[in-house]
């Protein structure tokens, strides 16, 4: 199939950036979206142009590196799918496809489609863990965890930290990301001792890193490739109120 992509090109943080159109000819419907960009980049290099910079790594939808806003939607048109797992069979011959980076105050553009997401790591540093230094652990069966809680914790823990939730949010908020971690750890018995300080510290770090406030728009959950539900934000807010009341 033949398509045109219009891609955000920005040589560096100081450059204003602009959309540039490229024709991509004879691409297989079985190619992934990133493989289509690979094919385009090979051509750009041989033509003496600068290839498009983009983040990607595992290409299996699990590392969370890939990050493209495709036709205005973070990770593109398919539900619960990362950019790397999106295939060209979901587009039509002759389509014009817009490709942009994550856009959020806390995720500044480095080059083209590559943004700086280190603010997510800062939120985890503030409390997104259980303090259990190596060697201090009791036997794994010392603390049974009800299957219901373990399963729910797992669902929240499937977050891949890609940042689509932030890119989709009109406020550039990271509430869904933070809520997923607060929920994962807060549902486990091991996570109880730090439960209150965790939610307070992580929300503070989120504000400090320049993420916006949550106004329950729900766009985040719509684009989440792992289907993290919006209800987790309600859980986070409830945890936060209880923690503040106790502090």
């Amino acid at each position: 199939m033949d398509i045109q992509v219009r891609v955000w090109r920005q040589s560096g943080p100081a450059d204003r950036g602009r959309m540039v159109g490229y024709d991509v000819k004879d691409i297989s419907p079985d190619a992934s979206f990133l493989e289509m960009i690979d094919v385009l980049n090979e051509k750009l290099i041989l033509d003496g142009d600068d290839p498009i910079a983009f983040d990607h790594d595992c290409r299996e939808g699990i590392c969370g590196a890939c990050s493209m806003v495709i036709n205005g939607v973070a990770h593109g048109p398919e539900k619960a799918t990362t950019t790397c797992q999106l295939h060209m069979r979901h587009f039509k011959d002759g389509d014009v496809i817009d490709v942009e980076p994550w856009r959020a105050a806390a995720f500044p553009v480095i080059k083209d489609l590559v943004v700086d997401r280190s603010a997510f790591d800062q939120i985890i540093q503030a409390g997104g863990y259980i303090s259990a230094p190596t060697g201090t652990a009791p036997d794994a069966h010392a603390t049974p965890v009800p299957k219901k809680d373990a399963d729910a914790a797992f669902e929240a823990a499937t977050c891949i930290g890609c940042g689509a939730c932030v890119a989709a949010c009109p406020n550039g908020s990271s509430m869904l990301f933070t809520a997923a971690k607060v929920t994962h750890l807060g549902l486990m018995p091991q996570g109880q001792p730090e439960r209150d300080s965790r939610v307070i510290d992580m929300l503070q770090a989120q504000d400090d890193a320049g993420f916006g406030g949550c106004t329950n728009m729900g766009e985040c959950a719509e684009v989440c490739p792992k289907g993290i539900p919006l209800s987790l934000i309600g859980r986070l807010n409830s945890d936060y109120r209880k923690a503040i009341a106790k502090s």
Partner: protein
Amino acid sequence: MTDNEFWTEGEPVVDKAAPDGPIETRWERRKFAAKLVNPANRRKLTIIVVGTGLAGGSAAATLAEQGYHVKSYCYQDSPRRAHSIAAQGGINAAKNYRNDGDSVYRLFYDTVKGGDFRARESNVYRLAQESVNIIDQAVAQGVPFAREYGGLLDNRSFGGTQVSRTFYARGQTGQQLLIGAYQALERQIGLGNVEMNARHEMLELIIVDGKARGIVVRDMVTGQITTELADAVVLASGGYGNVFFLSTNAKGCNVTASWRAHRKGALFANPCYTQIHPTCIPESGSHQSKLTLMSESLRNDGRVWVPKAQKDTRRPADIPEDERDYYLERIYPSFGNLVPRDIASRAAKNVCDEGRGVGPGGLGVYLDFADAISRLGHKAVEAKYGNLFEMYQRITGEDPYETPMRIYPAVHYTMGGLWVDYDLQSTIPGMFVVGEANFSDHGANRLGASALMQGLADGYFVLPNTINNYLASGPFPKVSQTDEAVVAARKQVEDQIEKFLSIDGDRTVDSFHRELGHIMWEYCGMERTEEGLTKAIGLIRALKEEFWTRVKVPGKGEELNQNLEKAGRVADFIELGELMCIDALHRRESCGGHFRAESQTPDGEALRHDDEFSYAAAWEYFAADGRPTLHKEMLEFEYVHPSTRSYK
């Protein structure tokens, strides 16, 4: 063995750190014998850790907890993205929670046997001992393993074993364990004990007075080159499966950190041992950039088959039972669909070579869940494998609940790596190697669910106990940024970058990488021959020359330049590819992930030659005459006596 046109042989290499005596207490005695570093002195010592996967992330966190000053580096934008995250199936541990006869000794035995008697017994026994601590550690960190209704941990059996010792978190075990290690690491970063450098790539090792004292890194955002100094260097930079271009590794996985250290004197052991994973999604066309693994846990409930007839193009549902060949169940009645990976892979290749493969190009076999769905129900199958089925459907557009999956083998893991002693120290004092980057525990073939176990055993429990012994031999003289060795290492990196940018040829880096991959898959893949390997060595040498005259690397050094990054990695892969072929050529036997067509039993099984090849082959970098030097480490089997594997 004598010298020949491809290699020379040098002195044997001896593991001086290996303890002897009863195997059950070797690790205990080694830990006790190791010198300790006073807690007050640890703060003054800096350790560099390259890579943040299970091995590197857990090592950096644990060393920081012990009080060392740690500097951590990864090429990804966050330590959480290291490729350990993609491991699906599970992690083995000898907990015997199922009361099914498992024990540390049985896990040890299975791993030595599964490795086709090419691993060190002492290392493997220690791995089995530490396996139980890993599960405890991960649970304490909040890793959400699968649990039963009583709240206790669930287990499943995994390829190549007859006990249920595999702990798992649906099909995302690697992700959950890595996030556990990542969170421990981030906690230490927050406490100021680890200095994290994401989007930084190690491009050279700095050796001063014979000791590893630092690395040269490139900031991948600004292109700035810096020299980072330390008291010890830990490489946790993963495996080299991407030498095949198409593999299940992440696109960025590379051998550069290991290879640059190899060039500086670290021996590289058993490079030819490559694990080809039997259950990957087949290639769909020339645009293919990587392959996707479907966890082999699928083989617990899926049945592998091909049509009995050649070139049978009927839909699978239209092929009646008696016209299907469930070839693994037929050839290996006791293990059936759970035979080890190398056997399952080669069997798939054999049926495809017979013209009975399915899907595009006839390069695929069916993995059928119809029986499991009718036996267990749709819901139970979904609970176990839901995310894997979704992944398959997303990539192929086919629904595995309705029609069998198509699978084909792909390169997945590399057992070879930098040679290390029992302390995980390389032949360069002060440089330690952990996880997939070293060669030590899996022999010629790794069992399923053992990679996560080894990465975490090395990082959480082994290295933090052995590195002290080295550091206690200090304090080492202070190294300055202006030392000759530091300046020279930096210049090496700058010169190479300048060279790449100045060639301005007419072929892209990727085109060379793809060509190398084709050569490796064709001649150094599932089946190797003397003729093919000799041919491959010639092709790779020619490719290397062409690379250095015709490669085109756009852009500048002082910016984010992904093609410049790739150029350095592909240059190293080309050299590694040649060494892999030489190693495969020299090993005139079949064992584990190395199958020489000349060495097989009458019914086509791998045939080892223990009298000649019961050693690890540790290679010294190519000498000026173009030949690498072989140093043998002889292997002794006191407990598990080499036998011919039989899974029939």
